[in-house]
């Protein structure tokens, strides 16, 4: 049974020492109740508190960190099934598989691809997150050599060690033992040996079984052997099985607080056909996979998958924002009309689309209002006359346009007077309230 913030608060030291990073114990308790913090952050929690709160304050899906340093990635700690309910917190990671047989030149090519994979998208830096060294045929020495090649070639990139043979894992993990790798995988046959390695090397351990019942039993077994950082593989490889298994795992964890399945999911999307692989990986991204292993990471493929991940993991409460700028729509000339709107991305996309539809080339000034829509931004004091005036003055728009007329959204018609005062020499024109009236408005200006 989940405890409320206030109930949790009763067990905290109430010293407001801020060591947990929160201003007060009450604030920390609220974060714990919202499953957005872990009791581990409180250095002074009593044993009593740990006992009572341990279970209640543990996130329904355990957070697992792969790697160390600035390229470390955390997955798990999700709390909902649908992104609109709250949000998806820790983006899934994409890892490329390097087979032992690819040791040498092939592996080097993939390592380079990973290193060169970083792209900048809407202000975020995105890249291939990890490398999965994959055993074939149980050649421990060869496997170890590829692990070493990866660790040396792509320093800091988290490593996943893929083999069901404990001897192979043991040989490979030597090269990344202190770097928090993920071992894949413990099975019913090798669980004891794998758990022993994971414990000794403080590695995370994936458990792999055929189907959800077997997975539940294995997860419990490995946990009982003393490994806490687990990752789940139910054996699903077909898109349909993936959606079904992953949904059941997520539901059991979040809605039933079913601990044996309260871990991140690892998904093998590998296909011979790279487009098919892209689409299956897309399904995994949307449907609860946390670690997705790919056979290849072509630039175009990663652009598509990373964009999808960014879309899906966007906080629905924080609308995606467009960078503040004066955008050229169509073949705008110095005498083309100049419109202004806020940087709420939906406002921007719709306004831009309607301006395009009008076929009247225009300049679209997009002002940073923290992604609020026009009316909300105005009411919050973020789209006021002086802020617009300041933006127009600082934007350097006079380099683009030869006239001094600014079209403002109809919703803030109230600002036109004050704007003309604050932008001497400018004519302020009130545009339509709704974007779909823009084509008529723009064309009507002749």
């Amino acid at each position, binding site marked *: 049974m989940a405890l409320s913030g206030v109930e949790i608060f009763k067990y905290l030291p109430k010293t407001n020492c801020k060591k947990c990073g929160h201003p007060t114990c009450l604030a920390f308790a609220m974060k714990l109740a919202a499953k957005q913090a872990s009791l581990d952050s409180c250095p002074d929690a009593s044993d009593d508190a740990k006992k009572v709160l341990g279970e209640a304050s543990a996130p329904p899906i355990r957070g697992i960190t792969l790697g160390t340093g600035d390229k470390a990635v955390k997955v798990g700690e999700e709390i909902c099934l649908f992104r609109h309910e709250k949000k998806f917190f820790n983006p899934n990671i994409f890892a490329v598989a390097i087979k032992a047989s690819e040791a040498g030149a092939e592996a080097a090519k993939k390592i380079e691809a990973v290193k060169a994979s970083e792209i900048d998208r809407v202000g975020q830096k995105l890249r291939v997150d990890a490398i999965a060294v994959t055993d074939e045929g149980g050649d421990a020495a060869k496997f170890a050599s590829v692990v070493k090649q990866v660790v040396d070639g792509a320093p800091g990139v988290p490593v996943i060690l893929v083999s069901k043979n404990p001897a192979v894992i043991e040989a490979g993990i030597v090269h990344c033992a202190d770097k928090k790798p993920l071992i894949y995988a413990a099975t019913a046959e090798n669980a004891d040996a794998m758990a022993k390695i994971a414990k000794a090397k403080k590695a995370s351990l994936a458990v792999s079984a055929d189907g959800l019942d077997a997975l539940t039993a294995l997860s419990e077994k490995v946990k009982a052997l003393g490994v806490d950082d687990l990752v789940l593989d139910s054996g699903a490889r077909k898109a349909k099985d993936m959606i079904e298994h992953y949904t059941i795992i997520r539901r059991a964890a979040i809605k039933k607080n079913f601990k044996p399945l309260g871990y991140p999911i690892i998904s093998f999307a590998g296909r011979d056909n*790279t487009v*098919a692989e892209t689409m299956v990986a897309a399904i995994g991204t949307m449907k609860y996979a946390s670690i997705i292993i790919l056979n290849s990471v072509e630039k175009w493929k990663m652009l598509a998958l990373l964009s999808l991940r960014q879309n899906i993991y*966007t906080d629905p409460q924080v609308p995606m924002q467009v960078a503040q700028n004066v955008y050229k729509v169509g073949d705008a000339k110095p005498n083309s009309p100049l419109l202004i709107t806020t940087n709420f991305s939906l406002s921007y996309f719709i306004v831009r689309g309607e301006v395009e539809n009008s076929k009247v080339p225009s300049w679209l000034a997009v002002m940073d209002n923290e992604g609020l829509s026009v009316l909300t931004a105005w009411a919050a004091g973020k789209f006021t006359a002086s802020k617009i005036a300041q933006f127009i003055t600082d934007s350097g728009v006079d380099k683009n346009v030869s006239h001094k007329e600014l079209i403002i959204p109809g919703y803030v018609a109230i600002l036109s007077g004050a704007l003309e005062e604050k932008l001497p020499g400018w004519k302020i024109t009130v545009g339509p309230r709704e974007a779909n009236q823009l084509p008529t408005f723009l064309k009507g200006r002749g």
Partner: protein
Amino acid sequence: MALTIPKETYSGKIYNVQVGTGAKAVTIGGASALPYLGFEGTFPHRPAVALEIMDIAPDDWPETVKKAVGGVASSPVQWAKFCQQNGADMVALRLMGTHPDQKNKSAEEAAKTAAEVAAAIDIPLIILGSGQAEKDSQVIQAAAAATRGKNCAIGKALEENYKTMAAAAMANDHKLIAMSQLDVNLAKQLNILLTQMGFDKERIIMDPMSSALGYGLEYTYSVMERIRLAALMQNDPMMQTPVVCDIGANVWKVKETMAPESEVSEWGSLEDRALAWEAVTASAMIASGADMLIMRHPGAAAKVKELISELM
């Protein structure tokens, strides 16, 4: 601890809607659970994949997709046949030439094209206006009359023109695509308005307004999830119509489907990237409940059909 499969109990189900006639008619809808959760519901019909054609040459489509439809695009009839031969479940004819800013073709011209296309194929036909609400009312009325008996899906009915659009569908026994602007509440409102004027709710196909990967895709995705949740969990009769996603027009105007590798080397091959852009956008729509997709690239459509097979 033994796992008890946490199943949802759904009280609603998506309507079955048939488009087209004869042996090649296609039924969509019918789902009784959230997308592809076979352990708690059934999915009697595959999502249908329509390929888009136009009544004018696709001059403003990016090269990659223009090349993929080959040299047939100058004739709507040839183009439609090409789609049928290339695995499309349906053909979607967009009467873009009627737009006042395009060729401003008359409703009669458009109707003639629609009739010719309908006669040339035996798979179902979707007939869409140019998106100009006022002109579409006339164009679709004429096109609907000219294709009477073909059981097409016509659209798009918008808040501004739904009355004439619905009348055209009713008078000529077509199905109606009703589009609202990316808002679950407005989607419900439009369906209420349609049923209030006597239009059968089981003849509506809902278009939540699509968006392209990287360009607000998450809005469409969540609106679709919420539509499906309301339909199934709340048993909301206004949300139980099948959903169509008109993605081609959105996908093939973003930079990712147009910029050559020489301009953006970090984005990789344009051909692969552009095809993947439409395919991944489609995957997201499928995963969130699309019953029908309108796409442009035959190669991407083929890949989407493979994914659908894997999901069924």
